[in-house]
Every structure is written in C-alpha cells, then in structure tokens.
C-alpha cells in the first residue's frame, strides 16, 4: 500500500470524569459539580464532534474509582462516583449526529444478553454509531458488590507471577466468551427477518431468527436476542491491552485494540505481536485497528504544558503516573509524535485529556487543525456510521451466510 500523502489517522478521545489527571477537577474549567448531569457529558461530546473525532469512549466501573488497582483507597481528594457509561452514551446519542459513542462495559459480573441488547439499542438510538469497550474486573471488592463469586486479593504486580498469569488468562477467556455471545446475539436476527406479511399474518420469518446455543465454562446463552440486528450489523468492539494475554483477546475478538507504547520501538513490537496473534486466530484478512493511548497536556508552548502538569502534580501531592505515555507539549509536537508512532503500524490514537475542560478543546481546536494542515486527518465526516468512519464494512451475518451455504 503506497500513497503520496500520509494515510489519515483515526482519533478518539477517552472521557473520564473531569480528565485523567487526578487533580484535574480542581482546575477552574473543570465543572466537578456537573459530573452527574447530562449537560456536562453533552458538552464534552459536542466538543469532540466539532473536532470531527471518530469516537469518544466513556470510562466506567462497578465500584468507586481508586488509585490502587486491587482495592479502594479511601481518598476524598479525587473524583469519586460515576454514572453508567452505556446510559450516558444513550443520553447523548440523540444530541449528536456523526461521532461514535463507545461506552465501557464490565464483562465480569454482567449478563452478555443484557449488554448485547443494550449496545444494539445504542446503535438504534444513534443510528449506527455505537461501539463498546469491554473491560474485565478482577477486583475482589467489586466481586463483593455482586456476591456470586469471591476473588483473591490482586495487585498489578501479582499479575506478573505465573499464578497471576493463569488467573489473568481465565478472566480473559471469560471476556472472550462474553464477546462471542454478544456478537452472536447481534447476528441472531437476519437483517430481513421482519417481513410484516399481512397475507399470512406473519410479522417475522422465524427461519431468519437463530438460536445461538452458546455453551461455555462460565455461562450458556440460548438466544435469539430480543432486539433485532442493529443498524451496523456488528457495533464496534474494542478493548485496552498491555500484555500478551489481553493482546490475544484484541486479536481474536475485537475491531480496535487500545495499546500503550512509550516509544516507537515498543509500538512496533506491540503491533507485530498483535498482528501475529491475529494471523494465528485466522483473522489476518479482517481489518483490526490498533490505537495508541496517550495522556495529553496541550498548550501553545511546551513550557506552559509542562508547567501545568507540574502544577497539577503539586495539587495532587504526587507525580501523576499512567499506564499510557504522558505527553506535555504543543499541538504541533503532538502531531509529530502521532505521525511518528503511526509509522510503526498504529492506525489511530485514543487521547486521554489530562484536564477535560482544557485539553479536549486543545485537541479539537489545536491538534485537529494541525493534522488537517498535514493532510493527516479528515476535514468533514465522510460517513454516517462508526464502522464507516473506521473504514469497516458492514459485516455479513454469520447465520445468514451459514444458511446460504447450506442451501447452495
């Protein structure tokens, strides 16, 4: 594949509270008291849509936020509490027209049947702009909120041990089953199942409704869905990954993986690993986006951005660390970095604004025009669906294809 101009990159923004820096809520632009209102989220997504971004993701979780992975931290100096991400996305959908809406869902304690129809419905209310970011929770205190399973204590360090890897593999196997069920349910209605045949009195052609008959280690689901196949056929599935086991899930089951390389070398290695897993999973021909995640502090000059980061670290009482690379600089410097990383095979980026009220508009009004000047980003929305924006075709229905093959 060759081209004289650089291939356009895809841009998403990850929305989380007042921003990703834990002291972001203390900035005058932050609006921390509005976090539990629809208008706060409507304003954020409207800004992202003005910037022609591909989509926004909404963070979520089945417990209070914490600065420790495996347990609550009892802190009162950071944002705590949040609204259900699928419902925020649905609430915003009728107010927007082009941007993709990708809420986080936790697969560990929820029902794939419910989530499948929720995301299908999000696809209906957004007329084809729904996606989902699947996240799992191994946190014991979140399992206690459901009382159906008990998880051993966990920390990010403990996951690196052999036992930790086994446990991780088990959680990710469950997530893979979950995505499989969600996807089968989306296909459990063929597109033309609704016939409204007045002559015979039949509303649907039941031969075009399919039991999914999934049986796995953690759950069995019969189907079909109660919700007809959504406008995109298959809404976009995405997942964040930091190591081999999650890379494998990305490669086997998703349309977009979010990864966290800290330099081009690491980016190249991650892309190679995911592409190899993709091939091993027999999906080499299918499009799979790999997005780099970055936390961004954006200002008109680098010193201001760096100073802002330091000031926020001071307010937080400690330097901010992240799984993702933290960038502080100008829109032009960020554009340079994104293009450099893109050369390793990343197809897009999910930017995490350090301060939503500051860095989101800096992305849409600073970075986006800079990328447009370089012919590296769209100047208008070129499609009405999220799959369309991401260059993903509307997929054939697995059951319709099977039925056609059987009769051929």
């Amino acid at each position, binding site marked *: 594949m060759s081209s004289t101009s650089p291939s356009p990159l895809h841009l998403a923004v990850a929305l989380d509270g007042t921003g990703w820096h834990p002291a972001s809520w203390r900035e005058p632009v932050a609006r921390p008291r509005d976090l539990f209102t629809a208008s706060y989220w409507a304003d954020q997504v409207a800004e992202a849509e003005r910037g022609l971004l591909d989509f926004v993701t909404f963070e979520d979780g*089945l417990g209070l936020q914490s600065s420790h992975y495996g347990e609550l931290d009892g802190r009162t100096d950071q944002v705590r509490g949040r*609204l*259900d991400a699928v419902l925020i996305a649905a609430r915003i*959908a009728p107010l927007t027209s082009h941007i993709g809406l990708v809420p986080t869902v936790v697969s560990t304690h929820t029902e794939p*049947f419910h989530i499948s129809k929720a995301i299908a419905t999000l696809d209906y209310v957004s007329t084809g702009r729904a996606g989902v970011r699947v996240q799992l929770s191994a946190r014991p205190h979140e399992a206690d909120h459901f009382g159906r399973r008990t998880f051993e204590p966990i920390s990010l360090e403990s996951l690196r041990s052999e036992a930790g890897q086994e446990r991780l593999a088990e959680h990710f196997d469950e997530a893979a089953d979950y995505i499989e069920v969600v996807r089968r349910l989306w296909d459990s209605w063929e597109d033309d199942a609704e016939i409204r045949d007045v002559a015979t009195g039949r509303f649907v052609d039941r031969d075009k409704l399919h039991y999914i008959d999934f049986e796995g280690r953690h759950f*069995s689901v019969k189907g079909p869905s109660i919700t*007809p196949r959504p406008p995109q056929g298959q809404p976009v599935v995405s997942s964040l990954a930091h190591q081999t086991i999650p890379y494998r899930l990305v490669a086997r089951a998703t349309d977009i993986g979010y990864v966290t390389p800290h330099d081009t070398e690491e980016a190249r290695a991650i892309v190679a690993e995911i592409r190899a897993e993709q091939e091993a999973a027999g999906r080499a021909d299918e499009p799979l986006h790999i997005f780099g995640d970055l936390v961004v502090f954006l200002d008109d000059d680098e010193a201001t951005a760096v100073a802002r980061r330091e000031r926020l670290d001071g307010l937080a009482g400690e330097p901010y660390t992240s799984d993702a690379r933290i960038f502080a600089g100008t829109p032009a410097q960020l554009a340079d970095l994104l293009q450099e990383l893109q050369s390793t095979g990343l197809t897009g980026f999910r930017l995490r604004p350090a301060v939503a009220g500051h860095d989101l508009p800096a992305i849409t009004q600073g970075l986006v025009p800079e990328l447009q000047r370089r012919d590296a980003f769209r100047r208008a929305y070129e499609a009405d669906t999220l799959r369309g924006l991401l260059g993903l075709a509307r997929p054939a229905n697995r059951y319709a294809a099977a039925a056609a093959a059987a009769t051929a």
Partner: protein
Amino acid sequence: MSKPLKQIHLAAHFPGVNNTTVWSDPAAGSHIEFSSFAHFAKTAERAKFDFLFLAEGLRLREQGGKIYDLDVVGRPDTFTILAALAAVTEHLGLTGTINSTFNEPYEVARQFASLDHLSDGRAAWNVVTSWDAFTGENFRRGGFLPQDERYSRAKEFLATTNELFDSWHGDEILADQSTGTFLRDAKAGAFVHQGQHFDIHGQFNVPRSPQGRPVIFQAGDSDEGREFAASSADAIFSRYSTLDQGQAFYTDVKSRLAKYGRRSDQLLILPAATFVLGDTDAEAEDLAKEVRRQQVSGATAIKHLEFVWNRDLSSYDPDGPLPDIDPDVSDNHISKGRAQVRMYRDPLATAREWRELAAANKWSIRDLVIETGNRQAFIGSPSTVAKTINDFVQADASDGFILVPHITPSGLDPFADKVVPLLQEQGVFRTEYEGPTLRDHLGLTHPDEVRDERAAS
C-alpha cells in the same frame, strides 16, 4: 360536603409485542427505530402525560416449540431507550420494566440512579419477577428460582436496591476546588446487605439522584403481589379497567396500606387501558369492532385457542367450529414466555363453557376468540371517552390510566389532540407540569421527606 375533584394521572404504554398492537395497519410504523419512540414520547409530553411506560421481555415467545411469529417481535433494551428519550423530552416520566430475577441489585441500582440523574429526576421502575427456566436459558444464573420464592427474591431485591439508593445521602460531594476536598466522607455509598438471596457489601458508586430513588411500580395481581405493592410500591400497573372490578381492586389494595404506616395517596392505582376514538360513539363502536378483527386474524385465533387447549390445533379451520377434543391438562405448556396463559386455571371448564357459547351464538373459532377477548376499555367520541375516564377516577376505580394505543407510534396522537383538552377543560388534568420530577407529577413525596415524617412521628 362533596368530595373535591381528583386530578387524573395519565401515562402512555409504548405498543408491545402482543396482539393488541395492530402491525398490519398501513399507519403502523417501526417498533424498533428510535424515531418511533421519540414520536410517541413527544406526543405524550405534548399532552402533559405523567409518564411513558415501556415493558420488557427477555426471551422471544414460543408456541409449539417454535418462535411465535404472528405478533410484533423484537424490542429494545429498556434502560438504553429510556436514557435516549430523556434527551428528547423535558418533563415526561420514564418508566421501564426491569426483571428482578435476571439481574443483580448493584447493577440495576446504578442503572436507575444513572437514569434518574440523566433525566433530572424522571426515572421509574416497574419491578417484575419471573422464575421460568425458559427465560433463564438466556442468562448466567439460569432458571433456578422456585416459583414460590419469586416474591421473596423480588422483595429482597427491591429492599437491597433501596439500601443502595440510600447509601448516599446527597451531601457527600463537596467538590471544593480550593481545599481539594471532593468527597466529604470517604465511606460514601457504604452498604452491607446479608439476606436469603443476596449477601453483598461494599460501596455504591452513584451519588444520590434527584428523586432519591426511582418511583416504584408493581404489576402483580396475586395476593402476594398486592401485599408487595402495598408495602413497597408507589404505583400499581393493574389490569382492571372495568368500573366494578376496578373499584374492588382499588379498595382492596388501598386498605392494605395502613398496616405499613402508609397513607392512601402514597400508592396510585393505574390500570392499563386500550381505547378507540370516533367522531361519534357509533362510529367508534364500528371502528373498535374492526380493530378487534384486525387484532385476531384466523391464525391468531387458532394460536389463542391453543392457550386453553394446550394442543396443536393448526389443522382446525378458524372459521369453523371449536374442537371436539378436550384440552391437554399436562404441566408442559405449549406456549412459552407468556404470562396470560396461566389465566385459564381450569382449561376443561373453559373449553366446555366456550363450546356452549359458540354453539349458542353460532360463533366460529375466530368469532369466539374475538368475543371472549378483551374489548377496548374506552370506546366512543372524545367527549364520551373523557367523561368515562373522569367518572372512573372520581368513582375511585383508579387514579388514572396507562393508555395502550394499538398503532405504533401515532396511536396516541388523537387522544392527545382530542381527549386531553376536554379533561383539561373539566379541571381534572394538568395544563402545565407542576414540577420537574416524576414524583412531582404523581404527587408522591420524596423519600427523604418520608423518612423525616417517620422520624418525627
């Protein structure tokens, strides 16, 4: 002294997946596109209705081992559609059915609390319970619940979600940017629940929503269901839309409130009601008859007869006489995923009675199903329907109605345009919303005030 006029409460039920909904009518639109829901909700809000109501079903119905294909099939996810409707309405309450058997309290509580925040206080929950293994096949937990435990689980489920809603009091978020204190209390949302069905603890992660708790609806009709409503619900979605049955139900349920320390205005009785309007009463009657024939095609008549006979009757002619063979009274029912088939407690007696009726009136199978099926609750000119509705409410047969149009999504429009103005003229229905929340529309007290009242007494 004459009784002051009661104010009527009105709600709109989005047409559902049963044969009330006439999908074959040329005016019938999509039952799944968002534009249909938006149209319906905007009509209800234009008419100053209290709320929109959305039902739920978690498995496609089957009959004779096959997916039932004669009615509308397919519906959206309740929470997702209600959250989207919050964006296109400002005042309308948003009531959804959510099953307490195939969900967990923590998740449902955060969804309702989120919906209440995102709608500025308009969320309501119709708590239903189920036990069937048939529906359970779609879920992790399966269909394990013994039938006699369904209310005990539903009650504990609701009590547990209330504990979660109440785990935040409303004053925890300080968000003081100068001092850096976001939360006033590190233990915000802390809860412990240990019971027969749920043993959970931790911290709830959605701060208190505008209504404190969603408004609670209950729809069960059994003695246990009525008791559950009297102890825990704000409103009952009942099925009695005739005057004498309505009054009996109303008196029975309201009389159960005192033992829970509740006043009679703390539980509203809102029956579901269908309607057909015409320019004149005679025209409406003709139209209603026609609608009933549309609702019961020959194929539908055979399927409905199978509810009672519990046998494959597909070889029978719907325009011919009733079957001579008797119903199969075995436990394994031909129809799955449907509540109303259990209404026929004695199928043999019902079959006998129906054969006699059909013979006496020279009814075919289809005639019989039409005639024994539900007549529309309100049939007439707009003034007749307005008067009938008002008379029902003033006679304490209900506190209002949940209207079920038979056409999606425009079936509510004529009611909004022609009947509501007449009720407003009579001073029995609001001309403007009095407050922002669904509790305001229903005249229900905020849970914080209820708690304060109980503490003071």
